[in-house]
């Protein structure tokens, strides 16, 4: 059962690690060109849900469909095709330390999309310029600040021209002074109409940017709604107590 406006449709997904359930039959609908924020305590399943959406983790049960035509959870799913359409940025950047910034960004386009070296470099430089990183193109990742590294990671995912971007607590490892520049990058992508799903601890940012906010509790989407609904008038006790604790 796919809803009319559902671009990503997560339906009854279960996932356990070593017998410990992390996702417990959770469902989620995301509209195209919208931003969805996943909030909740550590261990509530936010990261695992994101990883299931681009098939970095296989689900134990349930299904995830994208655009009604891409079954992420199928047994014979073309994982490479899924990951080409869905980008992800991690909390710990995960840049490749042995490659220059530019090579980090062009690796996917050259090897996966089979673009030419030249086209990939031109496109990468355009993206770097857009995010104010053009002067870092020939540096190695260990020369970057945390904020710069995370923005490079965003550019690296963007270079694959994904339809959906997943952000997994991308500001959690950053010095508070560097959070702003990374959030600016996400704002910019939001304005460009990319479909975004992000796990975040930045409540004010979620409030500002998200069309839909989902509170995860014990492996299920416990409550979801618009930012105003969820932050101003949370209905369930668990949501209320979580919001009280983080505010």
């Amino acid at each position, binding site marked *: 059962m796919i809803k009319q406006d559902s671009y990503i449709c997560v339906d009854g997904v279960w996932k356990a690690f070593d017998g410990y359930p992390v996702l417990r039959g959770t469902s989620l609908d995301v509209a195209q060109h919208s931003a969805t924020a996943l909030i909740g305590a550590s261990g509530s399943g936010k990261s695992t849900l994101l990883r299931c959406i681009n098939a970095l983790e296989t689900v134990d049960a349930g299904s995830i469909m994208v655009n009604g035509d891409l079954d992420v959870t199928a047994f014979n799913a073309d994982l490479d*095709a899924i990951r080409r359409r869905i980008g992800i940025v991690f909390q710990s950047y*995960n840049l490749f330390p042995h490659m220059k910034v530019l090579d980090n960004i062009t690796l996917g386009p050259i090897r996966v999309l089979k673009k030419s070296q030249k086209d990939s470099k031109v496109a990468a430089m355009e993206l770097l310029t857009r995010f104010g990183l053009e002067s870092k193109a020939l540096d190695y990742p260990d020369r970057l600040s945390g904020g710069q590294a995370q923005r490079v990671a965003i550019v690296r995912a963007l270079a694959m021209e994904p339809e959906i971007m997943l952000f997994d607590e991308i500001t959690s490892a950053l010095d508070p002074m560097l959070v702003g520049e990374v959030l600016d990058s996400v704002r910019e992508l939001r304005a460009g109409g990319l479909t975004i799903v992000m796990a975040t601890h930045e409540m004010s940012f979620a409030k500002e940017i998200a069309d839909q906010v989902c509170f995860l509790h014990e492996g299920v989407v416990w409550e979801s709604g618009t930012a105003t609904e969820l932050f101003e008038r949370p209905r369930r006790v668990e949501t209320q107590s979580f919001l009280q604790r983080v505010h």
Partner: protein
Amino acid sequence: MNNPAPDTETVYVDPLRQARSRKKARQDALIGVASLLGFVALVVLLVGRSSGWDTVAQTFFNGDQFAESFPGLLQAFWLNVRIFFIAEPLILIIGLLVALARTVKSPIFLPIRVLATLYVDIFRGVPTILVIFLLGFGMPALQLTGVPSDAIFWGTAALVLSYGAYVAEVFRAGIGSVHPSQTMAARSLGLSSLQNNRFVVLPQAVRNVTPPLLNDFISLQKDTALVAVLGPIEVLRRAQIDTSSNFNYTPYVGAALIFIALTIPMTRFADAMQTRSARKKRAGGVA
């Protein structure tokens, strides 16, 4: 009042403190040298005055014997050098292939994985000299047509097989030392497992294991002498012949000096690489 704000490049050290710490450094250096000289003088005095020293010097450090045998030893050492340079690239190739074979997960390649594991288990478990005996005497005894009976060939082959197993384990450790999040990032970009290995994991793995690999090189350099048991006249064999014909052990000392002359620079180089990579790792953090 505000503190003065020097430009960010300025390094300022109180001259008095600087003078004091320089003086301390000079004193430390002096004490160190004096202590070392004293120790050497003591050793020379004790050893030189001991009753057996003349016999020892005559048997192990005989100048005439040394001058007589050394050119021949150097010439024989050329064979060790050749064995080393033929074996080393082969060892690296075998080691890398075996390490990779042990990481493939596809069920169709299970035979390859089993073979690779068996190879490592067997050749790491058997003493190198035993492998040299087995191949060096055993293979020619088969008298198969097309199979060489050359002792140098089989001695080198035995070194390659024995060291290949060790180096495979070093490479495997290197592959394991690359954090799984790197693979996750590569796969999330759509890179295949093979591409992930080639572009992301292996380059970092090789960089991580360069110091231990250098240590294995040094070891191999010395172990080329083991081929002597099969008869080829390399440096150890040459020294053995000279020793037994003159009843003097100086040629052995000469052979030892030749090995040391080569391994010490390599050891220092390996140490320097290790320090450098450790520093780099600390500076890199979680990139």
